[in-house]
């Protein structure tokens, strides 16, 4: 579909590696429930980008060197991160408020500096707005290489720290008790997030990098119940989003790259949320409906067995569909048999739950599980010998 040139392929590979690193790193952020800190980090990069440009230009340089801009953004992002930490620890502000303060102040300062740059006598179109929403336009081959290498480095560090980060995220008190400095573990995690942000600034832009950190893990969470797999799947989702988004964006140069990548990630998230087995919305709905139907059937059968009328329309419909009652509400042959069986099952359960010393088995009662699946035939026979004839008490 796309006829990608050499440079464009390089951009796609760089964006893919960036997405991979962002998805994996973001998983730890998500598991530690600190997702929003990344928003403060990313918005704090802007004054650094602008100041770095001003400094480079005033020293007679080009001002657009990616490495220089990255260094500046890293410094100011680190300042923002430390400010959030300091405000949370030393003042009465909770972390969410501290994030709000830091994010808005740094971003505001950055915008002011960008305006100053626009008015600078250098008069060069700096293209710094590209760092807000990401852009592959005018990207150099070395830029793509830097991004790819940066992403790979972050990945290696995450792999090195993963065990410590998982223990800290799951149970920080236990982590502290075995000698993990949880403060440093958090700082390391934030440092990695910062690195992803700085590396991703050019492609995704600072406003949306948070999405590339968070969407992949929340999407991956629908597919797995193990932290390690969630991280790997999130890496995959991030990588695909980055590569596909970058290719789409290259094919239409007017499109900003960040939003396209985020939309691709969102599409994957939406699919995961809807259709993932077990944790997905559709699977949960099906599970709920089937549970509800079983409850109705059971209640209907118990009513039939005791000669009580079935009032609820849904119950009647389900009984009818299963061929257990006729249109006039009278039980069919199969219905009578199943009703008797349900009643016997219920009475056995009732006896079991009223007896002492049957705790574990009796705890399995949920009104639906047939007792044969919990007890052996011998045990059931013993219960039956004790049951008084008649219905439910």
């Amino acid at each position, binding site marked *: 579909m796309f006829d990608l040139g050499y440079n464009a392929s390089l951009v796609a590979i760089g964006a893919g590696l960036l997405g991979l690193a962002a998805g994996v790193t973001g998983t730890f952020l998500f598991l530690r429930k600190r997702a929003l800190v990344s928003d403060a980090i990313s918005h704090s990069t802007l004054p650094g980008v602008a100041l770095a440009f001003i400094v480079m230009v005033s020293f007679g340089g080009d001002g657009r060197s990616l490495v220089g801009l990255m260094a500046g953004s890293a410094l100011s992002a680190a300042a923002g991160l430390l400010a959030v930490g300091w405000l949370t620890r030393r003042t009465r502000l909770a972390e969410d408020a501290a994030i709000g303060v830091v994010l808005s102040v740094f971003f505001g300062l950055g915008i002011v500096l960008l305006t100053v740059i626009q008015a600078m006598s250098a008069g060069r179109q700096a293209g710094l707005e590209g760092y807000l929403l990401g852009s592959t336009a005018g990207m150099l081959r070395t830029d793509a290489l830097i991004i790819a290498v940066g992403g790979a480095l972050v990945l290696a560090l995450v792999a090195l720290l993963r*065990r410590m980060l998982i223990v800290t995220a799951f149970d920080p008190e236990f982590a502290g008790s075995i000698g993990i400095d949880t403060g440093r573990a958090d700082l390391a995690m934030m440092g990695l997030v910062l690195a992803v942000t700085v590396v991703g600034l050019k492609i995704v832009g600072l406003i949306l990098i948070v999405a590339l950190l968070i969407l992949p893990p929340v999407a991956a969470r629908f597919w797995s119940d*193990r*932290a390690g797999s969630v991280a790997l799947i999130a890496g995959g989702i991030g990588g695909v989003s980055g590569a596909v988004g970058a290719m789409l964006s290259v094919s239409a140069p007017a499109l900003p790259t960040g939003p396209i990548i985020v939309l691709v990630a969102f599409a994957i998230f939406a699919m995961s949320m809807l259709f993932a087995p077990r944790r997905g919305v559709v699977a949960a709905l099906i599970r709920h409906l089937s549970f509800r139907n079983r409850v109705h059937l059971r209640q209907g059968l118990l009513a039939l067995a005791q000669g009580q009328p079935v009032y609820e329309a849904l119950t009647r419909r389900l009984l009818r569909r299963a061929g257990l009652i006729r249109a006039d509400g009278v039980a069919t042959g199969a219905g009578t048999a199943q009703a008797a069986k349900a009643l016997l099952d219920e009475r056995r359960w009732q006896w079991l739950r009223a007896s002492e010393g049957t705790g574990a088995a009796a705890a399995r009662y949920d009104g639906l599980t047939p007792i044969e699946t919990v007890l052996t035939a011998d045990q059931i026979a013993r219960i039956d010998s004790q049951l008084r004839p008649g219905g439910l008490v």
Partner: protein
Amino acid sequence: MTQLKLAAQEGAAPVEDLSDIPLAIRGLTVSYGSDPAVFSVDMTVPEGAMLAVIGPNGAGKSTLLKAALGVIPKLSGLVTVYGQPIASQRRRIAYVPQRASVDWDFPTRVIDVVLMGLYRDLGLLGRVRRSHRDQARACLARVGMEGFADRQIGQLSGGQQQRVFLARALAQAADLYLLDEPFAGVDAATEKAIVTVLKALRDEGRTVVCVHHDLATVTDYFSHVFLLNRRKIAAGPVAKVFTQQMLQAAYGGRLSGGQIDRIAAS
């Protein structure tokens, strides 16, 4: 304030030999804000003891354990484990936090939680080998949870969660076990299983410290009691310390006389 002992004064005494004492705390003060949650507490846990830390709600029981472990910062005080600073003795300690302190929807399986107990053996990068898994399964078996190794932790009942935490502590193969309310909100079967395991640990010569809230079971489960209400009220063998007078001192008006009569030793 004048009659209060100064924090850390006793800890400063250089002659005390604590090398046989699994856990010694001297002059520990912990404060959230400017209000001390635990004030100038001295605690000596004898080797092989099964000790209950008891006291009313808000007495600082959990805080005392966490600060001793360095999980939360302390304002002042000295803590030694077998006579050494705690940082050098982490291997010999196993801590079981309150069950409610973690998110049980975390994506992890039962066996992965128990494997965290082997963190120090595994190190940052070491591969989890079959021998590690076998070790973890054996610990699960000791708490009656061998059939649950591959379950997601969110599927467990409260009692099962507590047993998994205990299994993780067993995997640490420590000499000193510190448990924060291990019996809180668990079913009777779990309580029995936990007590059996803890008594087995004591029989192996290990030392067990529990933050405990159920006064009715203190005499059955424990050999020593530490009564705390922000400050140390009393400490010693159950028969000596778990008395009407001491409980009155620790709980003040919060227990009726009848309650205290029923539960106090002798």
